């Protein structure tokens, strides 16, 4: 992902691996998924939907059946992802990491919101 985009959109790194990552734009209230040479701009709902679809993929079934194409086509509202078995594993890791960070951020924000300001 280009440093220019990160700087101009004011992106905050949420979670990255060697295969890709997720960045948040507070200015645009959206997320950028950098994966497999492609940058996709998603809202939190779409990212959540993508995670649900990825979590449901039966990798065992996908990789063991001879007649299976070994790719999964995922259609979201404005996006289409064509992923191999190994890419699904990589993306799953990124999404799990990002959602853990979202939860952590929520816990911290929640604690800060509850602080009594004296």
């Amino acid at each position: 992902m280009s440093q220019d985009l990160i700087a101009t959109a004011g992106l905050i790194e949420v979670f990255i691996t060697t295969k890709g990552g997720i960045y948040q734009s507070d200015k645009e209230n959206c997320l950028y998924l950098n994966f497999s040479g492609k940058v996709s701009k998603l809202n939190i709902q779409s990212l959540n939907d993508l995670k649900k679809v990825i979590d449901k993929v039966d990798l065992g079934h996908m990789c063991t059946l001879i007649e299976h194409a070994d790719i999964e086509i995922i259609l979201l509202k404005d996006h289409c992802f064509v992923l191999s078995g190994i890419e699904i594993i990589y993306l799953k890791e990124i999404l799990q990491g990002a959602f853990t960070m979202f939860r952590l951020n929520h816990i911290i924000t929640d604690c800060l919101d509850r602080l009594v300001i004296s």
Partner: protein
Amino acid sequence: MKDLMRIKSLLSTEIETLLNQQVKKEAHSSAIYLSMASWCDRNGFDGSADFFFKQSNEEREHQLKLYKYILDMGGTAISPEISNIKNEFGTFREVFEDALDQEIAITQSFKNIVARCHKEQDYVTLEFLNWFLKEQREEEYIARRALELFEVIGENGTGFWDIDKNIGGIKYSGE
């Protein structure tokens, strides 16, 4: 960093999942009561058939109330798939035994969601669920009282006739 998940929805993923499961359970309940109404009608218990039609509608209303809440709070409500509905019952009494089991299962399920709300300090959903807890008091009372009629009136002679006539009149007068 903005909390985008919280901006999108008041509900946590876990609470949303539990509420969607509850939507499914209410839909399942509604379908079971409909099948009980059918069995009662086919076997000449018209009073009980009316009672179960009414119960089925109530469960459907509960389902929609939960469904609407999930959407209003910014969550994703999932329309449930319902299958494996029991359509045949051995006896008239068995229908009411199953109805009470059903209500007990629903109450337990609500208790589970409430426990999760306490854990997450989701007092908004907790306040919403209070209505259902109160409703379950009434639902369990009615189902238990219906079954009690089999003991009080008895199943011999015109017992079934009397039970069927009195089922519709069961009312919960508690606060």
